Structure formats: structure tokens, C-alpha cells
């Protein structure tokens, strides 16, 4: 058994997952390999130290009102979505009314038309950009 073969067994030993036959194979190698013995001894000590650190970590304050924070994010997303939908409907309705109203002067119609065209171009630009990057994105399965 080489040192390379022993590495995975050493990991299992550190994590307390070694089966009996694996234990025997590991011991047989360690008896004749001072390097692996020293490495394993350090790994075990480091694990013991981090076990202590984990016990002493004080994260109660950091996790105070944790669910409240998650819920706020969910709620605010719904709120913003509704606001955007509502404003879009109102803006669309207003635009149609303004265009149909014969009392609205031509320069106001021109201003509204220009702003509308600009918004449309920006929208198409964003959609096109998303489609282009979406096709080239290697991580399409990744949830972001």
C-alpha cells in the first residue's frame, strides 16, 4: 500500500468512519511510514481544535431574527412585483388615454412617443442581451 493509497483512509480515520479491515490496512502502512504517521497525527489534532472552535462559536446574535430576514426578502419581492405590475398597467392606460385625447397638443404627443420609443428600445436591448448571454452561459443550470 502506497502513501497515496493511504490518503483516503486517513480522511476516514480523522472523521471516525474507518471500517475494521480498513483500520488494519492503515495501521500496517503507518507502522512503516513516519511521514504518514506525522501527517495523520496533525490532521487529528486540527480536527480536535476545530471541534472545540465549533462548540465555542457564538452565532446566536448573528442568527437572531434570521427567519424574519428571509421572510422580509420574500415579502418585499412580492411587494415590488405588484408595484411594478400596477404601475405598468397605469402607465399603459395613461398613454392610451393621452394618445386618444384630441385636446392633447402635438408636442406632448411627440414627447410621450419619443419616451415610449426609448423605453421600448431599452427593453429590446435588455431582452436581446439576456438571450445572447443565456446562449453562451455555461452555467444555465445554476440557480442564481
Amino acid at each position: 500500500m502506497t502513501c497515496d493509497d493511504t490518503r483516503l483512509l486517513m480522511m476516514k480515520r480523522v472523521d471516525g468512519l474507518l471500517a475494521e479491515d480498513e483500520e488494519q490496512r492503515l495501521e500496517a502502512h503507518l507502522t512503516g511510514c513516519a511521514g504518514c504517521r506525522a501527517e495523520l497525527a496533525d490532521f487529528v489534532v486540527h480536527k480536535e481544535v476545530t471541534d472545540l472552535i465549533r462548540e465555542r462559536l457564538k452565532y446566536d446574535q448573528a442568527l437572531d431574527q434570521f427567519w424574519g430576514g428571509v421572510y422580509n426578502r420574500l415579502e418585499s419581492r412580492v411587494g415590488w412585483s405588484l408595484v411594478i405590475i400596477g404601475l405598468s398597467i397605469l402607465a399603459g392606460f395613461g398613454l392610451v388615454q393621452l394618445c386618444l385625447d384630441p385636446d392633447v397638443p402635438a408636442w406632448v404627443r411627440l414627447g410621450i412617443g419619443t419616451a415610449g420609443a426609448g423605453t421600448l428600445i431599452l427593453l429590446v436591448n435588455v431582452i436581446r442581451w439576456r438571450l445572447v448571454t443565456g446562449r453562451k452561459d455555461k452555467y444555465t443550470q445554476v440557480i442564481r
Partner: protein
Amino acid sequence: MGNAMIAAVEPTAATHRERIVWFEQIVIHHQRRAFLAALGFLGNPEDAREASQEAFARAYRALHSYDVTRPFYPWYHRILRNLCFDRIAKRKRTPFPTEHVDHVTASPTSLLNRTPEASAISVDRQLRVQRAIDRLSVDHREIIYMRHYQDLSYEEMADALGVAIGTVMSRLYRARRALREILVAEESVDDV
């Protein structure tokens, strides 16, 4: 847990209220683990709290793509991991002001209870090991956090990282060796 809860309420079929109640229990159960995972990536308790909360919100919105027969945490961890990597990438483009560097790189040291305890391993030693972990690469730090602090099994780690169990063990070995090298180098400097 995860699975027992999910078996009780099918999240995609439940009403909004049922889904929220179910999800609250999921969040409460996994919040420490999630926070520690984010801390391992970002190194700052405030950022970690914010990122783990945002990842839960994204997980909720993506529940339709969650396979209810699988454990929740590995699936959630992948969302958190992507979110943290995005933030790390942004951080690289917009570096933190120098005065924050110590805070950013000194992850859970700021969360450690410094009250002396009846322990054979001194607080100084614990801080030294923690600082060495903070100096590891993100990949190495992630796997150390998963095993040492989040207490994930090899199967859960493999599931969360999308790799085989053998790969998890190899990565863990490399990370532990890197940690050892940092500590050995520090000790040799101290000895000089």
C-alpha cells in the same frame, strides 16, 4: 431532518400559507449550517448572514425545481455557493477598503467566545488554527467548513458539490494538507 418535513408537506402542492410554514421550519433547522457555510465563503459574519438569508429566499422561489425525494440542504448549498461566488467575484472587481481587510479575513475569530475554558487546547491555538483556515483558498475553506463546522457527511458533501464521494475525500485531504502546511510554516517562522 429536511426529508421528514418534506414528506409531511409537499411544498409545490401546498397552499401559500402551508408552504411558508413548512419553509420556516426548514430555515430554522438549517440556519446555523447555512450561516457557517456562508461565513466560510465570505469571511464576514454580516455578509454571511445576509447571503444565507438571500439564498433561502432564492431557494423558496426555486422550490419548483427542488426534488422533494432528495435532502434539502445539499440543494440549498448549491444555491448559496453560487450566490457567494458571485459576491466574491464582485468583491474582486471592487476591493474592500484596506481598513476592512482584517475583519474580512478574520472570519469566525470574531464570533469566538474568548472566555477561558477547561480545555487542553489553548484559546491561542484555536485562534491560530482558525486564522490558518481563513488563509486557505475558497475551495479548500469550503470543504473544511463543510466537514469540520457544518458536520456534513461525505454523501451530503458529494451531493452539494455535485462530485463523487472519492473526490470529496481527495479534496478534503488536499485541504487538510494545505492547512497543515500553513500551520507548519507559521510555527517555523515563530521559532526563528
